Structures are given as structure tokens and as C-alpha cells.
């Protein structure tokens, strides 16, 4: 992207890309808001199983939540390293962030496969449809983030990620953290607060 933008006059003194990106994040709030709302209004309405209690694995997901939180820490450290021109640590933290993102996707792939084996497919019931769509959308965002971070890593190895390009990393970081906070919400409302009534035993 253009480095000239920073030198341009802007009425707020802010970088246009950052304003646009925050607008995009605002828009994403409504995207995930609608997905979460749908999940919640449909929770407990499935006419057949399996549902949350039988399927969701809290210990496993707690670990992947930890993983994603840690990646956010790596991300801020990466940005700080790029800003002060520290190429080595920029690469280390960027690589760590991407790696943790990939691990999260690995957890999700395992979780999805496991659920399918347990009998919960995409079309099995309302829970399956809403759960896979919501978490799938989130996973898709993580995937894009990992690709983005790897692109930055390559740019860094090409020597094209100096402090003057810090805005590129900052915006990738905003994206990454937003994906993280979405997971914070999903972890709570999907995994920890289960309103589905326990199946009658």
C-alpha cells in the first residue's frame, strides 16, 4: 500500500486506512451480532439431538481460547517491534501470532471432525446449522488473518516491513484482535452459557 498516504493532508490528521478499517470492524460487529443473535434465539429449539450438553467440550475449547488470547499478546508485541524497527523480533512475534492462529484452526478442525463423528452434522438440527455457521464464520476470519500475517512475515523477510510500514501491521493487528474479541463473546455465550434444557433422563 501507499506510503505517500501518511504524508498527505487529512482533515483529522489520521491515516485514512485506519479510519476505513475501524468502519469495517464496526460493520463486522453487525455481521457477528446477527450470527450470535440467531444462535441464541434458536438455542434449545432443535427437535432432535445431539445438542450442546452432549457435544461441547469445555476443557478443549478453554485451551484454544487461551491460544487465541496468547496470539493477541504476540500481535501487540509484533506491532511494537515493527514500530521500533526491530526486524528480528518483529519476525518472531509475527510468526508466533500466525502459528497460534494456525493452532486455533487445528483445534477447530479437530472439534468439527469430532462433532461429526458424534453425529452432529451441518444439517442434523438447528444446533448444528447455527453452531457450525457461527463458529465457521469465525474460523474463516481466523484463516484470513493467518494468511494476512504470513504475508506480512514474507514482506518482513523481503526487507519491506520497516517502521514506515507500521500502519500495515497495526491494521492487521486491529483485525486480529477483533477476531479475538469475537471469540471471547462466542466462548461465553455458546460454550459456557448453555440455555438448552438438559435432555430428560
Amino acid at each position, binding site marked *: 500500500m501507499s506510503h505517500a498516504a501518511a504524508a498527505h493532508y487529512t482533515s483529522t*490528521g489520521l491515516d485514512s486506512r*485506519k479510519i476505513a478499517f*475501524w468502519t469495517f*470492524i464496526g460493520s463486522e460487529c453487525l455481521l457477528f451480532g446477527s450470527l450470535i443473535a440467531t444462535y441464541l*434465539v434458536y438455542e434449545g429449539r432443535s427437535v432432535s439431538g445431539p445438542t450442546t450438553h452432549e457435544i461441547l467440550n*469445555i476443557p478443549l475449547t478453554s485451551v484454544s481460547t487461551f491460544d487465541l*488470547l496468547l496470539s493477541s499478546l504476540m500481535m501487540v508485541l509484533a506491532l*511494537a517491534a515493527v514500530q521500533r524497527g526491530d526486524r528480528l523480533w518483529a519476525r518472531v512475534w509475527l510468526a508466533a501470532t500466525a502459528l497460534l492462529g494456525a493452532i486455533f484452526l487445528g483445534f477447530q478442525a479437530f472439534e468439527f471432525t469430532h462433532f461429526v463423528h458424534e453425529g452432529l452434522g451441518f444439517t442434523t438440527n438447528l444446533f448444528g446449522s447455527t453452531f457450525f455457521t457461527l463458529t465457521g464464520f469465525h474460523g474463516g476470519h481466523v484463516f484470513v488473518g493467518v494468511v494476512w500475517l504470513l504475508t506480512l512475515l514474507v514482506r518482513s523477510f523481503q526487507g519491506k516491513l520497516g517502521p514506515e510500514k507500521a500502519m500495515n501491521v497495526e491494521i492487521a493487528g486491529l483485525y486480529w484482535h477483533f477476531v479475538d474479541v469475537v471469540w*471471547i463473546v462466542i466462548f461465553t*455465550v455458546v460454550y459456557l452459557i448453555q440455555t438448552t434444557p438438559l435432555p430428560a433422563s
Partner: protein
Amino acid sequence: MAEHSEPQEHQGSAHPTAATYVAIFAVLLIITIVEVGVFYVPAFHGFLAPILLTLSALKFTLVVMFYMHLKFDHPLFRTIFTLPLLIAAAVIIALLFLYGVFRL
């Protein structure tokens, strides 16, 4: 370019240091452990939702304020993020009411 009064960038001293970032992470981690802990303690089950929602909102705020720098950045960013966020929250709450998940 001299006539606009807002500061150009807030980078530098205003930004939190690596130590702050690590400290925030520690807090996030502790909250997460508490959340999972609460989930497993039967005594809390009567009011699980309010506890967990509060804790999760706290985590959300910490990440947005510190990792996304909203606390230190230009107030414009706060406006263009918060307004849609509030709309999204209102939509979720309204739909939960309309579907009778919440009742007055």
C-alpha cells in the same frame, strides 16, 4: 497543516509498553480461568449468565482498549466502533425479547 488542532499521532510515550501488554494478558488469562471455573461450580449455576457475561464484557473491553489502543487513540475511532457495537448489542437483546428468551 498547522491549523488543525488534533495531535497528529499518539505513538510513542502515550502507548503502553510491553510490560503493560503482558500484564493485560495475565488479567485476561485469570478472567478466563475464573470463567471456566465458575462453569464447573454448581453453586454458581443459578446466576451463571450474568457472571459470565460481565466477565466476558470485561475481557472484551480490555482487548479493545489496550490491544486495539482505543484507550489511547483518537476519539473518532471510539465513535465509529462503539455506535455499531451498540446497535449490534441492541439487536441481539431485542431479538431475544421478541423470541421470549428474555421476558419482562
